């Protein structure tokens, strides 16, 4: 599944009606979001122009005035070429979820040059991926903010942010497309905002570093990191009869359908009557029973999770087990906190569960359970897997109070 943004370009911000005044003003004053900074070469050119200009006025020498005029004309040419370079170039972000904590993720900037015969050179892209804190920001006055360690705050913000400057190393031909890739590793679960903060270039002569701010951004949910865990045999699925049948193949007692015999099928499953009637060897396919699977319940009350790192580990274990159970067809229902259990019938349901796991937070004990809510605890659910701290660091998954897995 790829997340694709709409195309944006250097003119995307300019929505106002064209007038000559606007054009002239735009030539003099950079548009909003545009940054133009002098580079070393540009500073040198400016200093040279200033020096030559002063000498020209001081001496009234036309040779110096010519040189000054040429340098200023070169600066204008630089602006024109820079504008041509950005003109009719469009870009968009392409993301490839799912993203998981600790795993390398890919972000691509796709480019298209819609110019007829002019190529585009030397673009760079300022990309940033930033973790969005779900908690409301605390407004701290600089006057009253005594003891606020600014440096530590900045350091913390830096940890939750990844930035990169990607260069288009090749020529972007007219009517051509290109792609610039960035890979980074999310450091924590939650919602991350991937932004294309700016598209810049030193083209053509490196006098000015021109950067155009963009509105291109995309929010991506980063799932908890997969973890290694140890399963305990004692708490394997307990088989009980009379369970709820599911509309998918399994090893229950109800006939779901018939199918052709395949090597390895038990001879007990052969449906002799049907085989005789059709002349083909057919076997019974039985419906699965819910009692074969597991229901996951991730409790989020603060009383249970004194240590946030154990809570994180529990979420990772829950996510990993959920994926493993789904893959083996054993994931029945899932629930987080005091919400009602949700059945998992498709990959979409699993993704939704993992999305919720990505953003779940520890909830204070008094509000952990709302009265009257139909939580898994109030319902009769077989093979209910819950999670709890295990010692100082570990987390254990329990099925009906017995250890099922440890991480």
């Amino acid at each position: 599944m790829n997340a694709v943004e709409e195309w944006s370009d250097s003119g995307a911000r300019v929505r106002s009606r064209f007038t000559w005044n606007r054009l002239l003003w735009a030539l003099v004053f950079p548009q909003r979001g545009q940054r133009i900074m002098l580079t070393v070469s540009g500073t040198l050119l400016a200093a040279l122009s200033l020096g030559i200009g002063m000498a020209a006025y001081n001496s009234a020498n036309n040779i110096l005035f010519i040189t000054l005029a040429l340098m200023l004309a070169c600066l204008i040419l630089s602006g024109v070429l820079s504008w041509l370079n950005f003109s009719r170039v469009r870009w968009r972000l392409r993301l490839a979820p799912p993203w998981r904590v600790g795993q390398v993720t890919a972000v691509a900037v796709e480019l298209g040059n819609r110019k007829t015969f002019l190529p585009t050179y030397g673009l760079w892209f300022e990309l940033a991926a930033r973790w969005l804190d779900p908690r409301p920001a605390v407004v701290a006055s600089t006057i009253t903010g005594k003891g606020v360690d600014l440096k530590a705050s900045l350091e913390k913000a830096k940890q939750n942010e990844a930035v990169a400057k990607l260069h288009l190393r090749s020529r972007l031909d007219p009517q051509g497309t290109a792609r610039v890739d960035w890979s980074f590793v999310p450091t924590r679960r939650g919602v991350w905002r991937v932004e294309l903060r700016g598209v810049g270039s030193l083209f053509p002569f490196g006098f000015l570093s021109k950067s155009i701010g963009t509105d291109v951004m995309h929010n991506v949910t980063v799932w908890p990191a997969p973890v290694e865990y140890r399963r305990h045999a004692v708490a394997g699925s307990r088989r009980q009869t009379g369970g709820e049948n599911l509309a998918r193949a399994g090893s229950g007692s109800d006939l779901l359908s018939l199918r052709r015999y395949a090597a390895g099928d038990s001879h007990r499953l052969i449906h002799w009557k049907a085989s005789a009637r059709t002349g083909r060897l057919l076997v019974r396919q039985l419906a699965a029973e819910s009692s074969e699977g597991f229901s996951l319940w991730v409790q989020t009350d603060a009383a249970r999770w004194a240590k946030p790192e154990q809570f994180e580990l529990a979420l990772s274990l829950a996510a990993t087990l959920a994926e493993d159970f789904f893959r083996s067809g054993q994931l029945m229902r899932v629930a987080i906190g005091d919400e009602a259990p949700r059945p998992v019938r498709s990959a979409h349901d699993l993704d939704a569960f993992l999305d919720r796991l990505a953003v779940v937070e520890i909830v204070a004990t008094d509000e952990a359970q709302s009265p009257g809510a139909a939580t898994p605890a109030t319902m009769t659910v077989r093979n209910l897997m819950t999670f709890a701290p295990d010692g100082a660091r570990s987390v254990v998954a329990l099925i009906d109070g017995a250890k099922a897995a440890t991480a």
Partner: protein
Amino acid sequence: MEQKRPQLNSDELQQLKWLLGGALVLLSVWTVFYLELDAWTMMAITTLAVGAAIVRPSWPALVPSWVHRLAFPAIVAFFLGDLYLTAELLPPIVRLDILLLLYRGISYRKRRDDLQIIVLGLFLIVVAGVLTVSLVFAAQIMAFTACALAFLLVITLVDATEGAGSDKGRVTSDKSAAVPAWAAQMELGRLLRRVREVLDWRVVTLGGLLFVGVVGVSALLFMAIPRFQLENSLFLERFMTKKAKTGFSDTIRFGDVTDIQQDDSVALSVDVSAPEQVPAQPYWRMVVLDDYRDQSFRMSPTVRLRSFQRERTQRFVLGEAPPKKGTGVFWTFYLESGVSRYLPLAGTFWELRFMEMQNFRLAPSLRLIALRDEPVTMTAYRVENFVISPIVADPAFAERGAAQPALRLRTSDQEQLKRFVAEITGGAALPVEQFITRARLWLTSKHRYSLQSQLPGGDGDPLVRWLSSAEPGHCELFAGSLVLLARTAGIPARLVTGFKGGTWNAFSNNFTLRNSDAHAWCELYDVTVEGWRRADPTPGAGEAAADESADAAVRAGRVDRSWSARFDSLRVFWYRRIVNFDQRTQLETLKAVKSSTQEFGKRLRATVEQIGATMKAMVQGPWDVKRVVLWGGGLALVIWAGWAAKYFGFSILDFRLGRRRAAHELVRAEAGLWLGRLRGLPVETALLEDLQRLRYGATASWAEPRAVFRRARDARRAARRNRVS
């Protein structure tokens, strides 16, 4: 389908950068050619070394590291030594600049070193331009700008290709490190071929047009930059001295003027607001030499002290001629550098105005102006209302006692001269004018004119020896002889050097004097007119034309339409419009632009009104069948042209610049049209598939669009034919 254009890789860009950096160094150091500075050896070494480094970029790696360590101290030591030995500031700085360029040109460069090349090169070119005001500067700064912009562009592309902060291809601080990969692989021929492959003619054309635009914009900026009249003279001139040609200094030896005549370069250009004012045979006086001794003519100390006023520092000087009523006649002189510090003048004047402040001395009785220093750059001055006359009035000379330095000749030479004078005058005391005529006849009867003349050997004064012989002679010998003969006859006489004649440039409409027009003549004091009468004894140098028709013939004969005149016209344009551009010219230009714009507006309005009136008259006229047919036909033609443009537009639009829709969009639209036209017709599936690919498919899957559309057209025709049959 269009093939993807190749692209230069990182190594090739590095090679191109190296090549352009070398070219910039060479372009810069070649300023020595016209800077006339003693740096020829350095320039030759730089050219050879940098040229070799361009062709073989791996060679700089052979230079041991200690050379790089010692390079900077050595260059500084050289500069200080140069400064101490020459006792001048600017020439050592220029030589230092060349040395630094040499070093940068033959060592692997970082980004800052590349920028250094541009700065050093620009300094050299600007200094040369300021000092010489030469037209070559214009060509050189253009070439340098184009090269520097290409160089900066390649640097930007290199940075983009390698990514900011990457050190690939960069040079480490140890310049003697191993040969960079790009240098080891570089072959000039292959690189140029690759560049040619990579370049798109449309991009190159646009680049060329943009550069023309840069030149145009810089011209506009040059004219538009506000000027303030700051009364300063150029500081750079003070740091460099230049020696003028000896023929126009205050001492000349025989042959000095003739040496100048060998040089055909332009010495002086004169703009005249009333060309008819230029005489048929103009004499441009520069130096007056009244003393003859040690076989050379010189300006006597008496004249130097008495005739020249004290030095002034100002922009203008008033002469002795009265102002002309009404609009005056302006003569604008552009005296090339290295000619003389004495300004060529055709006579007395009302006002002489320099383009910038000058230090000069005026000698009113001699009609001379001498600048304090030999100008190292072109000197421009404007003279208002010349009074041109063969007589230089000097009533004070008679009052001073008509004293001239005595001729220091041996007695035998003096006796010889007396005998010659007796031959000329027949022993009678002749009026000056008559003496001049007879002396000229006598001289031309004995000697013919030749630039390849030689003084006969023997004792005594060389001029007297030449007079005694039948050897041919040049202007100095003829003029010098007349001075000696006149002085022997008791007539005060002096030698004058300057220019005579010149050509009228038919392209720039100005008078051009070349060094080959250098001339020497003499002036004899005529008490009857209380002035110095010009006498030119050189054969063929008639004093004045016999009549007006001959005068007109001379004027017509001096019109120059040769290729060198075309080039000179460029130079004059450079002086008129660029070098001499000042606040006054700026205002005049603005007024001219304003008036021409108003004029253009008036004409445009008149033309539109005229067209409107014509159209109205045509519409209101009686309509007969012929007119209806004509108008209908015209209208049909316009409609057909519109349809044809739309129908065949695709192939034309292929080459149209700046079109609104991209080529592939047009192809898709055209394919959509054809799919509609062919719907329901029995056409082959392959054609429909090709059209559908053009309409909906990726451009990479397309067949050649025009061929597909041609097939579609043929298929439709065939289907119609079948239906009819």
